[in-house]
């Protein structure tokens, strides 16, 4: 049952992700991303990480998709930004992507069995343990993250506001 569900969700996820990068219409790409992120949440439920699934829906699917739609609306006219040297064509990009996948798949398939499976976490108590971890072992990264979020908030606001006359 779970295996069948995995296959269906994985197919949806992969198809949605391909639509995101291959689509011509930006708004559709954003909506496909929403589908991809939501189906990832289903995978997390399959893996008994219910809390992560909830965060995935709330933060990613809710927050990021909204932000992205705003972004598309505000900046529809910007094109021509290149990231790579001479922004690879479809053929070169495709070759690189296939190469990346081949390397990763080789790493994964050739290492089967080196990872020893353990008794899975008890789904009942995972969320409680997560909460405790954030306030004990992982308190320091939590605090550092809060500083980062402050800086990002201030920085984003100051960029979005009107500029000084220069």
């Amino acid at each position: 049952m779970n295996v069948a569900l995995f296959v269906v969700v994985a197919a949806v996820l992969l198809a949605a992700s391909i639509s995101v990068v291959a689509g011509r219409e930006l708004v559709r790409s954003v909506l496909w991303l929403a589908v991809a992120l939501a189906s990832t949440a289903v995978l997390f439920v399959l893996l008994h990480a219910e809390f992560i699934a909830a965060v995935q829906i709330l933060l990613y699917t809710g927050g990021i998709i909204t932000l992205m739609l705003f972004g598309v609306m505000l900046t529809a006219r910007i094109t021509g930004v290149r990231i790579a040297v001479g922004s690879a064509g479809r053929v070169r990009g495709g070759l690189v992507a296939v190469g990346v996948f081949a390397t990763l798949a080789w790493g994964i398939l050739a290492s089967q069995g080196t990872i020893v499976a353990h008794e899975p976490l008890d789904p009942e108590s995972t969320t409680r343990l997560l909460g405790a971890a954030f306030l004990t072992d992982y308190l320091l990264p939590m605090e550092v993250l809060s500083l980062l979020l402050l800086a990002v908030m201030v920085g984003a606001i100051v960029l979005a506001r009107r500029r000084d006359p220069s």
Partner: protein
Amino acid sequence: MTPPLTWFLLLSAALFSVGTYGLLTRRNAIAILLSIEIMANAVNINLVAFSRCLGDLAGQVFTLFAISLTVAEVVIGLAIVVLLYRDRDDVRADLADRMRG
């Protein structure tokens, strides 16, 4: 029963490669941002799948931090994209003023 770990890892690898393809081929700023999101999402699948297989909580903690970092990153990206948009708009406005005067 849950599908084996390898399936999740291969799916994640495929998603990461799809994101890489978008990163290399798209030119629109938002589209590049979307491609990076696909890559970041692949990371989360890896982490949660490992966490399940290893019976270790750290993977889930890692995922939550990774999600927060990605959200912060998107905010920065959109702020810069909007800024770029307005810069170009300013340029157009300047031209319009000069042509009038």
